[in-house]
Structure formats: C-alpha cells, structure tokens
C-alpha cells in the first residue's frame, strides 16, 4: 500500500464508503457479463462439440432416400465429381413392442455393413458390441431409447418388420451423429420412450424388407471444396428412376438442423439479453458518477488548484468506473462460466453427444469484459467530462441553490389541497424531469425484462393451445409404410376402440417459385375434416378450398409467394410428376412450415387413385388398451404419434430448458430492479440528507421524512410500471420475432397476470430497498448537517 498515490487511496476510500451502491452496480454489470459469457461459452462448446463429434464419426455431407436401388448404382454415385466416400444402406421403419410399455413404439432400423466397419455416420458404442454377421436377430439400440426402457445387452423385445413378428436381442447400445436430436418422423420433440433407433446387420434387414442386393438410403462424404448442390443434382438424376425422394445436404438433415437452429437461438440470446443488462449498468454508473462528481466539486477544484491536470482527473474517475466494472466482470465471469457449463450439460442431455467439450477459451471472457467495461465507461463519460471542464475557482464555490418555479398547476384546486411534503416530492420530479424520467426508465427496464422472461411461459401455453388443442382433435396419427387404398379408413374404423378415422395424404416435394425453392411435404386434408383440419393460428379452422395450395406464412415468406402465384412442384416420390399449382391461401401456424391441399385434389393431381398415407384417429379412452395391442400386430403401420404424449413431451422438454431460463431471467431482472432502486434511493438520500435533517430538527418524525424521501421513488416506481409494461411488450415482440425459425414461431402472448407478476416483483424489490435505506434515516446526523455546507 505504501507505493500507492494519495489519489488512489482517496479512490479506494470513496469506493469503500459507497460499497453498497458499488456492489449494486457491480451486480447489474455481473448479470450482463454472466449472461454474455454463458451464451458465448455455450455457443463455443456446442460448436466445438458438434464439430469434433461429426469429425470423429465421419458424419455424412449428403443424404438421400430412395425406394429401392440396385447396389451397383453405388459405383456410379462414387463417380460423381466431388464425392469422397459412398455408403449405401437400408433404413426402414418398424413397430416395436416393448414389454414395459403399452403403446406401440416407433422404431427406425438402420443397417450395419456385414463386412468391415461403417464408413460414414459411425456409431459410438456405449455398451456391449455391434451386431455380429449372420445373427439376424441381434440389434444395437440407441442409448437414450435403451435408457428410457431400461434395456441393455442381453434384453430382448418384439418387433413387427413388414408385418412379420420377430424377437430382437439387444447386444449393445450406441450413439450416432445422425440422431443427436432423436426425433420420430412427424414428431416435434425427442420422445425416447416412443421412438428408438435400432441398428442391425444389412443381410438381416435386406431379407426382412426384400432388399437383397439393393439399398434404400445412401450417404456421401464430399471432397473438401466440392459443391454440394452440384453433387445433389447429379445424385438426384441417378436415383430418380429408382424412386429417389431428393437428396439433401447436412443443413437439411433433421437432427443437425435442430442443432444448428439451437445454436442460432443461442446467438440471438447472446446479443439481446446482455445488451439490456449492460445498458442498465451504463445508466446506473452514470447516475452514481454524476452524483459523486457533483458532491466532489470542491475536491476537484482543489486538485486542479494543486496543479493536477484534466487528464489526471479524468483518469481518476475513469479508474473508479473501471474498478466497479472490474468487480462486476469478475463476478460475472465466475457465474457465467458456471452457468455456461451447466447450460452446456443441459444441452448434452437433450442433444445426445457422447462427450462434451466445455473448454471456453479466453475470447468469450475478454469479449464480455470489454463490452461490460466499455458500457460502464460510456455511461460515465458525461459525468467525467463535467468534472474535467469545471474551472477550479468555480469548483470551490458551493453550487447555488437549484431554482424552482411555480407551475401553472400550483394554482389549481388540486395543488392547493396538497400538503407541503407532497408538494416537495412533486416539485423535485418536475424540476428534474429528465433525471426523474431516467430513474423511472431504469425501473421500467427491470419490469420489462421480467415481462419478457415471464412471457415465454404464456407463449408456450398459447402455442400448445393453438397447435395441439384448437388445431388438432385426433387422439393419434397413424402413418403407413406404403400408400394404402382408401378402404383402410373403413377397416380402421372397425378396429376396437376406434371412434372415427380420417385419411391424410403426404407427398414429399420440392416447391419452387422463381429461383427460390424449399423441400416440404404437401399434406392432403379432406374437405370438411374434423379431426385434423388446417388450423390458422389467428383465425382458427380453415375450410379446405377445392383445389390449390395452402401455404404456411413461413413457407410463403421463404418462397416469396403470395396468393395467386403459381408454384412449380417437383414431386419426390412415385412417378415424380412436375406439377404447377396455384397458391390459394396463406395461413399462420407456430410450428413447422407446412403446405396443404385438399385430399381428393392432391390424389387427382398425383394420379394415384384414392390412396392414403395415414390416418387421424379418434379413440375411445376405455378401449384404448385393446386398440394399442391390435395396432402392434397390424402390418404396414410405420409409426404412430399420440397427441396427448406430444403435449406432455412438449411441456416436459420446455420444463427442462425454458422454465429454468425464465428462472434465471427473473433472478437477473430482480437484481436489475434492486440495482436501480437502491442506487436511486441512496443518491436521493445523499443529495437530501441536509434537507431531511432540517426537517427532523423542525420536528418532523422519521416516518414523515421517510415519506418525503421514499415518496419520490414510490411515485417513480408507479410511473415505471406502465412504462415497463410497454417496454416489456416491445422487448417480447422483438424477442419473439428474433427467435422465430423455420421450426418455431413463438407467439406474442402476454397475459394480464404476467404484467401483474412483473409489477409485483418490481414493487417488492422497491419496498425491500426502501426498507433498507429507510433505516439510515434513523441515523441522520442532525447536528453535522446543520453546521456545515456540504
């Protein structure tokens, strides 16, 4: 300490005197820094883990499915310029019958090469071994599925493969880069109880599905620098005669697509949330520094009289800001690193990685520190400038009493009815409208952040309500492996437990409008559909027009298509016809980017006759068990999705991620609210200690002067609440639009109760701060303040 200059000693002592306020600001800075570090390190970890996982397991670059192609085609595919490796395989669906589970489980069967190791998308064995050659009943199961059903090597379960019942024996569990996000076809969320991936020997699968010397799926690795679009175009040409459904690259691979979407959302989060906190931190530093410099006028004048230069004085106050910011950044780094690790682990459970690389480099921390310190410095720039420009002589004079004036309001009946303490509160607010507004705005921001955080819960409810409750009335959706004649509807309706069944048709297609295109299935929905009609999130059920395409707004925006435009539709199955279809309606939906067409019209356009891809069914709750038992035995059923399970899974998944985040944001917003309130009251107290002490001497009680001091902040809080509600709405609007992706749009729904909760939390923190500061009023030094000018 001996080497410290007097100026630095003064700095430390002043900070120590202001420690509670310093801590309040540091906590707000820490919140911003922690959020930023959490988001940045999570992104870093997710990207590093994904890249490393994909590299180690040779995740393919291009994927394609085909009806049935001869194995020799592999050589032609390998000859496409830019292709490095080709692996053909068989991928099929099956209904599994797990002993511990009543409902049928959708299984995806993927072949393992009979000889040699996998070339691409290699499995990471988690237990046991791979299926042995010539052991047709051995399977490796995906680890999350095994965990959900407590399966391990040595266990067995039933499966219906192409209508034939088999018993499969588990020999190992594994993870695959293709199923980081393991989602059933048509599902929204991973459901490890109802969807599982199974790997078995190629020969066994070929025998079961009649695909000897053939394949129905191919994956490619490309040479560095190869043009994926060119490879895809050539591959489509090769596969077309064999029922290819259109090749796609990694970015459209479903698991990877979800993962990349999540990373994008994290990036949005890393921009918006810390910005809000750091803006408030800047505002708070400004508030405190302005006051500190105002009360330190005399000292600044003195320092200048001693010959300290402007630069030295500016640096002195800048150091003060940097020290406060430094404490914040340090706290933020600790909390942020912990949160980041925790957050990444959460992702690793949700997205199934076999390992996790959380090794945050210095970049995130340095970036967060620079941004946080920069914003704190920027916030205090004006205050420091004011100190620097003070001429020494003037700085030595006490500030002249602030001039007030009577507003026209002073003569109104209302004003005359006010008592003097209330008049003092109002006059101060009117005398410094900007300062009052800023203090109010700071509080409003905390209300706004609370609303934004709590809004997610409303939004999820609204989303589920719109999509699952209002939009869908079926109990289950059954998908067939192949197209079935319309008579399937009648035969299903005769099954025990089925109340009614409604057909649907799904046609994979590439929709093209001008130079824009998108892969999306067109779903045929019968006119007058009751169980699963097309549902507009804003207007409700839509009556199917007799012909033409109904596009979701997301898809229409993607294609820049509007009602009346003609789309070119490249069908990716069967005869692969090219159709021209008009857009007849655009509707809003929160999930996916679907396209619809009237069931009969779609069948006519496809010229397939009256066929169905699957059924929507309504079930009799009492007879459901019988239905499920029968369903496990029906051939041609590729999968079944239960609406109720979908809702439950949706909430469960949200519960694991979103609710926890909402909790964080509520905690951070409360910190923010406390930071602003506490500083506002403390500043008001130090500015007015003399005035309040005078009043005490004049015979006012503690409670009466508390009213004068706290009445002001109370009034500002009341003003802040409606302002905060407005800001909260704006933030929620921005966030919901920033978070919109092809998969999800978060509806902008804020319940009145949410505004109420946010207001209550803000009020509670104001009351708590007021209670803490009020205790200081009991220790006002009545004598000292009267004796000297400040």
């Amino acid at each position, binding site marked *: 300490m001996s080497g410290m200059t007097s100026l630095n000693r003064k700095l430390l002592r002043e900070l120590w005197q202001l420690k509670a306020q310093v801590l309040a600001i540091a906590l707000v800075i820490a919140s911003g820094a922690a959020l930023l570090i959490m988001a940045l390190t999570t992104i870093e970890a997710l990207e590093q883990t994904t890249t490393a996982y994909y590299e180690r397991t040779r995740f393919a670059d291009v994927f394609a499915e085909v009806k049935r192609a001869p194995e020799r085609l592999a050589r032609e595919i390998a000859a496409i310029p830019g292709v490095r490796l080709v692996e053909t395989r068989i991928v099929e669906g099956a209904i599994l019958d797990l002993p511990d589970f009543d409902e049928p489980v959708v299984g995806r069967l993927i072949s393992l090469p009979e000889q040699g190791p996998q070339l691409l998308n290699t499995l990471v064995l988690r237990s046991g071994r791979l299926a042995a050659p010539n052991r047709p009943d051995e399977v490796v199961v995906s680890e999350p599925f095994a965990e959900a059903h407590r399966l391990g090597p040595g266990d067995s379960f039933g499966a219906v493969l192409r209508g034939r019942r088999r018993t499969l024996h588990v020999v190992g569990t594994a993870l695959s880069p293709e199923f980081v996000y393991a989602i059933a076809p048509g599902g929204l969320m991973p459901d490890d109880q109802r969807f599982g991936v199974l790997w078995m020997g190629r020969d066994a699968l070929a025998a079961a599905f009649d695909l000897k010397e053939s394949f129905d799926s191919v994956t490619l690795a490309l040479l560095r620098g190869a043009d994926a679009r060119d490879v895809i175009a050539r591959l489509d040409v090769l596969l077309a005669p064999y029922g290819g459904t259109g090749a796609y690259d990694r970015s459209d691979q479903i698991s990877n697509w979800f993962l990349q979407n999540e990373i994008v959302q994290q990036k949005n989060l890393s921009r918006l949330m810390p910005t809000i906190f750091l803006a408030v931190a800047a505002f708070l530093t400004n508030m405190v520094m302005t006051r500190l410099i105002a009360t330190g006028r005399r000292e600044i004048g003195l320092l200048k009289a001693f010959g300290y230069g402007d630069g030295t004085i500016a640096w002195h106050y800048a150091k003060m800001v940097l020290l406060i910011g430094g404490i914040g950044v340090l706290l933020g780094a600790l909390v942020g690193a912990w949160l980041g690790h925790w957050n990444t682990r959460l992702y690793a459970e949700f997205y199934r990685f076999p390992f996790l690389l959380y090794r945050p480099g210095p970049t995130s921390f340095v970036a967060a520190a620079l941004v946080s310190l920069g914003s704190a410095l920027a916030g205090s720039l004006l205050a420091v400038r004011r100190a620097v420009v003070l001429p020494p002589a003037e700085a030595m004079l006490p500030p002249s009493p*602030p001039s007030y004036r009577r507003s026209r309001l002073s003569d109104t009946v209302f004003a005359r009815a006010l008592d003097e303490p209330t008049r003092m509160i109002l006059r101060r607010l009117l005398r410094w409208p900007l300062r009052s507004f800023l203090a109010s705005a700071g509080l409003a921001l905390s209300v706004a952040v609370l609303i934004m955080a709590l809004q997610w819960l409303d939004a999820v409810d609204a989303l589920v309500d719109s999509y699952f409750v209002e939009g869908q009335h079926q109990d289950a959706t059954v998908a067939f492996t192949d197209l079935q004649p319309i008579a399937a509807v009648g035969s299903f309706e005769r099954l025990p437990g089925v109340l009614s069944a409604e057909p649907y048709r799904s046609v994979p297609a590439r929709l093209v409008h001008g130079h824009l295109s998108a892969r999306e299935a067109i779903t045929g929905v019968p006119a007058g559909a009751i169980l699963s009609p097309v549902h507009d999130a804003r207007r409700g059920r839509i009556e199917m027009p007799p012909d033409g395409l109904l596009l979701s707004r997301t898809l229409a925006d993607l294609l820049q298509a509007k009602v009346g435009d003609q789309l070119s539709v490249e069908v990716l199955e069967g005869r692969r016809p090219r159709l021209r279809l008009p857009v007849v309606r655009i509707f809003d939906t929160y999930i996916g980017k679907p396209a619809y067409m009237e069931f009969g019209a779609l069948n006519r356009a496809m010229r397939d006759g009256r066929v169905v891809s699957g059924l929507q069914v309504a079930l009799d709750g009492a007879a459901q068990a019988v239905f499920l038992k029968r369903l496990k035995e029906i051939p041609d059923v590729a999968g079944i999705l239960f609406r109720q399970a979908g809702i439950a899974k949706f909430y469960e998944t949200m519960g694991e991620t979103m609710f926890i985040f909402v909790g964080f944001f509520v905690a951070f917003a409360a910190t923010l609210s406390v930071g602003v309130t506490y500083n506002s009251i403390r500043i008001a107290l130090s500015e007015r200690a003399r005035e309040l002490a005078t009043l005490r001497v*004049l*015979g006012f009680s503690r409670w009466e002067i508390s009213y004068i001091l706290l009445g002001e902040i109370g009034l500002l809080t009341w003003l802040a609440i409606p302002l905060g509600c407005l800001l909260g709405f704006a933030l929620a609007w921005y966030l919901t639009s920033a978070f919109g992706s092809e998969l999800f749009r978060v509806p902008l729904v804020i319940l009145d109760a949410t505004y109420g909760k946010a207001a209550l939390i803000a009020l509670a923190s104001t009351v708590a701060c007021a209670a803490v500061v009020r205790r200081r009023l009991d220790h006002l030094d009545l004598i000292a303040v009267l004796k000297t000018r400040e």
Partner: protein
Amino acid sequence: MTDLPPHPGERHPGERRVALEARGLTKLYRMGAVEVAALRGVDVALYAGELAVLLGPSGSGKSTLLNILGGLDVPTGGRVLFDGREITGASERALNRYRRHHVGFVFQFYNLIPSLTARENVALVTEIARDPMPPEEALALVGLAARLDHFPAQLSGGEQQRVAIARAIAKRPDLLLCDEPTGALDSATGILVLDAILRVNRELGTTTALITHNAVIAEVADRVLRFADGRIVETQLNETRRTAAELAW
C-alpha cells in the same frame, strides 16, 4: 425551580419565570482514542421572554449547549428541564414532540427547502404544529409580506434567513434557538435579520437564545453568557439593550 443554585456572578433579573434550565451539563466526544470535553459542567437557566446571547470563540461549546437545549443532542451528564419536565433521557419520540411543539431553530445556513416557496417553507411547519399563526402573518412579522411566493433561489441571503426565522416562529414556539444567524451575512443584512429576531422576541415574547462570536451583537441581549473551554465563564446583564439599528460591525 427557584432552588436552583445561582450561577457564580449571576444576578436574577426580577421575578421572571424560568422557561428552560440546565444543571451540571457535560458532554464528551470520543475522537478516536482521545476524549474531548465539549461541555465541562454548565448550569444555566433561560427566563421566559428574555433574549440571551451565548458569546464565545468557536469550539468553546456554545453550539453543543444549544443543540442539547433544543433536543438535538443528548448530554453525557447533567439534566435539562423544560417547564419543569426533564427532557434528558427522554425517548426519541418525546424529543421529536418537544422540537415539533416547543422549539424553533434558526441556522447559520438557513436550510430552506429549495423546492418550496417562502410561504410553503413556513407552511411546512405550520401544517404539523398545534396552534400556528398563518404563514403570511409570520412572514409579515419578518418584513417579507411582499415575497410570499418566491423560491429560495429568488431570495437574497438575508431574505432567506428571515424566511427561516418566520418558519421557526410560525408555530409560536416557547423557545427560539438561533445558531450564528448572521454568520453568513454581511453587516447591513445581518442587522435586518437581527432586527427580525428582536421583533419576534419583543412582540411574541418568545424566549430566545442566540449564538454568536460577534461581541457587538451581544449588546442587543438581556443577558450575555460568555463561553470558554466548555464552561460559562461570565454572565453579563445589559442594563440597557440597544436596538439592531444602532449596531455596526
């Protein structure tokens, strides 16, 4: 009350009632490791309606005494009796009531509320008082009837101090305690302020104690209590009081 031992050299000014008396007051301040005695045994009585000046160099203990008499500070030892009731050892609440209803303060630096006009500054006190005079009357008494709606920033130092006096006397206090009321003012303005205090003392009969280190001001008092080193070293009775207009410093 009459059995109070008279202060050495003190002469009773007739048959006047004692409004406030202090006996054996001591006050110790602890400053780090050292104790400083601000008062070293002060006995004093203020008689109803008199104007007493406490004269002495700074640090002699006169402000400490005034603060204790006004219920702002508590003595280390000794007693203070107001109207026969002991106020030493009274609760914070009781002291607050004492200040609210019985004592008027005037400070060196006025301590007006900048956000309130002259009239409102006075009303601030009359609103919580039991039997106040209208703020306008109090301001007229100090010669500010024409400046009712001015804010402190629009008033001169002397005017601000006179508002402070009006504020102190509007509740008709039993005691008016003034700590260097002219200390921050030039002589001409100081005389105006002093005149206002004298007028209040004369017309309302308010017992007044006034601190100053300006010996000239002592000539307007009934009694002058000279302070040195935490004690009253001399009490002087003015046979003839001079008016403020007669003073010059």
